[in-house]
């Protein structure tokens, strides 16, 4: 096998592995200068000199390779799509505006999608009650799945009372998913009925006003369905409705939660 060096092509007789080259004391180019090397070349014959020269130059290359490798991997680890980087795609994209942080954008995506959904439902159904029912049913479907996501993310302990549950919904769940914290108030003496008062409803961010023919449309009825579905999955039957709605001209948006006594009946049956 021919190997290229400064002095031209030389033979490599015994291919030693890199690991076997531990010391360079045998190598001529380390010991002496050029003159010495040439003399040895003439005296000892080609094979011996070749081996030694290759020894030193291979080790130098090996050292260089290690240095390069270390420098290379000491930078941040490359993303898995490195192949694309090798192709040198020149993105040169305009910088993203500071207002478009990912967090706000995903919420805007949700709000816009919800708006498009309500608009489509309004086109499909003529009556407001149908739209409201449809939204509620969709919200129920979302709620039964969302509760698992909520419990997984928040890892909250079991609520011991209805008021604790209402507080949990308002302060943890709303904050986590919509970024707002409604205030909770108990509206009945028995402690079954609560109301969440939202002064800022992110779902209506892009709604100017309800059209005149849709006066009784509950725009955010999905929220009611979500709360109802989520509570049902933790074995709490509840009735959730909108008591006040800013879109309809009221001062604040108010969601009323009435806990029903279903669980108590089940307990009685078990005792029997």
């Amino acid at each position, binding site marked *: 096998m021919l190997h290229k060096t400064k002095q031209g092509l030389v033979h490599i007789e015994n291919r030693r592995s890199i690991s076997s080259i531990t010391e360079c004391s045998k190598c001529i180019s380390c010991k002496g200068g050029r003159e010495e090397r040439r003399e040895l070349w003439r005296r000892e014959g080609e094979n011996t000199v070749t081996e030694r020269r290759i020894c030193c130059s291979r080790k130098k290359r090996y050292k260089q390779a290690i240095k390069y490798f270390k420098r290379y991997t000491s930078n941040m680890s490359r993303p898995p799509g490195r192949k694309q980087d090798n192709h040198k795609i020149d993105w040169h994209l*305009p910088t993203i*505006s500071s207002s478009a942080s990912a967090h706000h954008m995903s919420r805007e995506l949700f709000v816009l999608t919800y708006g498009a959904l309500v*608009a*489509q439902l309004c086109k499909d159904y003529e009556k407001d009650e149908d739209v409201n029912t449809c939204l509620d049913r969709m919200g129920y479907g979302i709620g039964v799945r*969302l509760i698992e996501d909520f419990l997984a993310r928040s890892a909250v302990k079991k609520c011991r009372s209805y008021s604790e549950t209402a507080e949990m919904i308002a302060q943890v769940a709303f904050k986590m*998913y919509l970024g707002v914290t409604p205030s909770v108030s108990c509206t009945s003496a028995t402690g079954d009925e609560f109301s969440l008062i939202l002064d800022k409803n992110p779902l209506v961010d892009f709604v100017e006003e309800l059209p005149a023919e849709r006066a009784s449309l509950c725009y955010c009825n999905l929220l009611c369905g979500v709360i109802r579905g989520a509570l049902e999955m933790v074995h709490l039957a509840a009735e959730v409705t909108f008591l006040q709605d800013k879109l309809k001209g009221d001062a604040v948006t108010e969601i009323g939660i009435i806990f029903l006594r279903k669980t108590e009946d089940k307990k009685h049956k078990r005792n029997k």
Partner: protein
Amino acid sequence: MADEALFLLLHSEMVAGLYRAAEQGEGENGRCITKLENMGFRVGQGLIERFTKDTARFKDELDIMKFICKDFWTTVFKKQIDNLRTNHQGIYVLQDNKFRLLTQMSAGKQYLEHAPKYLAFTCGLIRGGLSNLGIKSIVTAEVSTMPACKFQVMIQKM
């Protein structure tokens, strides 16, 4: 982000709700995909407006497509498009190897016949985004193995 779960759930409920309504109604199945696509169109228009409010003008079509692949996709689906191919004559193929809306459904050939329903909204999203950036296009999608999918964008010269 927690909002991701919300959007995924809302999207699947939307698809289910529309199809349920179609079943109970006259039974026009083709209209559902159109409805979903139109919804996506409207959402895409709005999103791209808010997203590119302060960005500089795009140089050319390819720049816009790269923006969609990188920043827009990252915002909506928290990842970038894995592969962008073009024939430089107005046809772009965006390939996503792990499409967020399909990962929870299956990882293979199961439920392949239901996949197009879940891609219609995203097709509309891309079409709406491009439309508000001044490009008229037709976007179609195909799935061969879930959750990988390809979106084909055909630019229409006006």
